[in-house]
């Protein structure tokens, strides 16, 4: 396998893009990444696009071929990847494997979702497709309900408090306030979260990530070519993916995501590092409980201690481990298919030292953790500064 580097990144602002459609969002993110990589005049060999529900949300399937067409990239191969909310991360992994294998040299990986063209209720149904239709959504369990079950069990088994869940939102909104690409630009207080409307007990409105529009893109190249495009290539030193049952009722535990544990373990082995070596990590905080479970399952904190660690500030910017410096899904926004790629964009900025007010000091090693549905897919990438 060849070594693979990210040589360019770009994204749209996340939020409500009333005046942009799916293809405009992708084009903006893609062009920003291509400019960032100084790709002018260089042949792109293939594109991979992650999107979860373009068919339901904008009525358009065959979406990656459309993007190739719209961006004037025909006739290169254009492949859509779908793994619910992990679509972006899995697309990145497909691009990584294509370059690592030697099949392609220059690959652009994009992720996008256009979610605000439909009413919230329609978006909720589209997202519900990430779980088990027959066992969950059809019975009325939308995603907040499924994660609420996990939160309740976590509270029961480990004494995790609602305030600790709320603190995840407070931290991530604070980080988002330092990220001009983030959906939410204003810090919030613990009281705001605790007093927000109950969605699925114990998850309140501010425990949930928002419905956003947005796109993100990265340009991949083999390590030996990377310095043609950038002085600061960021090497992908591990890529791992795992799956689990879609239905929550078929799992042995409600308080951990097995796919996260398996994928993270594989990734650490591949990168020859331990969780303690990671400086900055973007985890999949679709709900606040998801971040607490993620930092435990990855191995940053022991099982059951994630809530306390969050409350103690151990996951804040430039503390024990900087978690979700972008603002995460909670603060930066969650255009589903874009999220996994956005996580990579944020880590690249952090490792290059380009993260501005939210820069993690001396960041050497970064990690992304992208989950599909309630944990039936997990994809993890570890990156390192290559200079």
């Amino acid at each position, binding site marked *: 396998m060849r070594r693979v580097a990210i040589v360019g990144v770009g994204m749209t602002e996340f939020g*409500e893009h*009333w*005046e942009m459609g799916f293809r405009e969002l992708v084009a903006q993110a893609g062009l920003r990444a291509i400019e960032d990589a100084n790709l002018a005049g260089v042949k792109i060999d293939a594109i991979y696009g992650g999107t979860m529900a373009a068919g339901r949300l904008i009525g358009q399937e065959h979406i990656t071929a459309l993007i190739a067409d719209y961006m004037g990239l025909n006739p290169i191969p254009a492949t859509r990847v779908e793994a619910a909310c992990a679509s972006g991360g899995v697309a990145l992994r497909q691009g990584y494997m294509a370059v690592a294998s030697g099949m392609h040299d220059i690959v652009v990986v994009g992720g996008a979702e256009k979610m*605000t063209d439909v*009413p919230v209720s329609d978006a909720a149904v589209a997202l519900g497709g990430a779980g088990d239709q027959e066992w969950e959504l059809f019975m009325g369990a939308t995603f907040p309900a499924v994660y609420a079950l996990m939160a309740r069990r976590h509270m029961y088994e480990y004494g995790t408090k609602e305030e600790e869940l709320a603190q995840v939102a407070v931290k991530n909104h604070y980080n988002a306030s330092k990220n001009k690409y983030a959906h939410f630009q204003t810090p919030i207080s613990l009281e705001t979260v605790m007093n927000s409307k109950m969605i699925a007990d114990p998850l309140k409105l501010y425990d949930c990530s928002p419905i956003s529009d947005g796109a993100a893109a990265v340009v991949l190249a083999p390590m030996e070519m990377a310095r043609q495009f950038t002085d600061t290539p960021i090497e992908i030193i591990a890529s791992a993916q795992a799956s689990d049952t879609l239905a929550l009722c078929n799992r042995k535990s409600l308080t951990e995501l097995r796919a996260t544990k398996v994928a993270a373990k594989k990734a650490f082995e591949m990168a020859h590092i331990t969780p303690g070596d990671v400086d900055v990590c973007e985890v999949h905080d679709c709900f606040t409980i998801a971040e607490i479970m993620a930092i435990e399952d990855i191995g940053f904190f022991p099982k059951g201690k994630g809530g306390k660690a969050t409350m103690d500030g151990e996951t804040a910017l430039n503390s024990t481990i900087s978690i979700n410096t972008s603002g995460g899904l909670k603060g930066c926004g969650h255009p589903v298919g874009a999220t996994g790629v956005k996580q990579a964009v944020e880590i690249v900025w952090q490792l290059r030292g380009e993260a501005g007010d939210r820069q993690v000091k001396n960041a050497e090693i970064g990690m992304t953790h992208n989950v599909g549905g309630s944990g039936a897919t997990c994809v993890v990438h570890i990156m390192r500064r290559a200079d």
Partner: protein
Amino acid sequence: MKIKDDESMNGNGVGIIGYGVYIPRFRIDAEEITKIWGEEASRIKDGLGINEKSVPDIDEDAATIAVEAARNAVAHSGIANPAEIGAIFVGSESHPYAVKPTATIVAEAIQATPNLTAADMEFACKGGTAALQCVMGMCAAGMIKYGMAIGSDTSQGRPGDALEYSAGAGGAAFIVGKEKNEMIAEIKHTCSFTTDTPDFWRRPGADFPSHGGRFTGEPAYFKHIISASQMLMKETGIKPDELDYVVLHQPNGRFPLQAAKMLGIPVEKVKQGLVTPMIGNTYSAASMIGLAAVLDVAKPGERIMLTSFGSGAGSDSFLIEVTDRIEEKRARAKPVQSFVSDKEHIDYGRYVKYRRKLKSL
């Protein structure tokens, strides 16, 4: 830039010679609705800025409300012979008939028939101000002596929808003429900002409207209200500090205050014309009742900017200057406040009965 002279404005000497409003007396408190749907009252009241909304009685509709407002307007104007009213246009999104005009019912009721033209208008919440522009033009052109523009609605909200807290009922009628000695306020200038923006709609046969949630805000209400208001200020040369009152369409109690802030207009200039917190959003009547509330207290020489908004979407903006005649007609007006204060609270049960939300009725 100085305020332009009359020749550069398009009002052509037309003004308001009388106005009247009508608001049904029943109210339902937002808290009563939250009890049914498991919401928190304080969150709704703070979030929407609406404490209670007006509810029409079971025998009231947009036509009866329009008639009440029209009668009050005729009385206020001092017009002895309503047959001199040459045009009546009624803007509403809840006309009782799909085919058959509300305007003819009004015309007959106030004895303006038969030598007049009449028609209904629909532009979501701005049908009434569109009617006002039409009668202004007809008066200015000499086609008619007096024209009447009405906004009247008994707006609908699907049970449980956010609209249920805001959709109220009410009407306002304005009589326009060209005689200076009859005029209580001159309409100096008007302009509109219109685009095709599907933020809110109701299909034929549908009981309740659909809306785009948050899309009804920034790209719809704010874009059109701000653009039309700025257009008016640019075309007339007037600046926010030269305006004494500003009335903006008020789908809830918060949007007009936010819009005023964006326009650089102090909240105090908006408060007098802000009635939605007490009666809900009266749709086609909302900004017109707001204007009436301002005229109830305005002094000669004061300047008012009125900007409506209708989903779909568009805004009409007006620069209005109060004349010396306002004081002498004031005694004949039934002030907005008298309707706001005259109220009886009902529970959700009576509300669903009056609003015919029970399908078995």
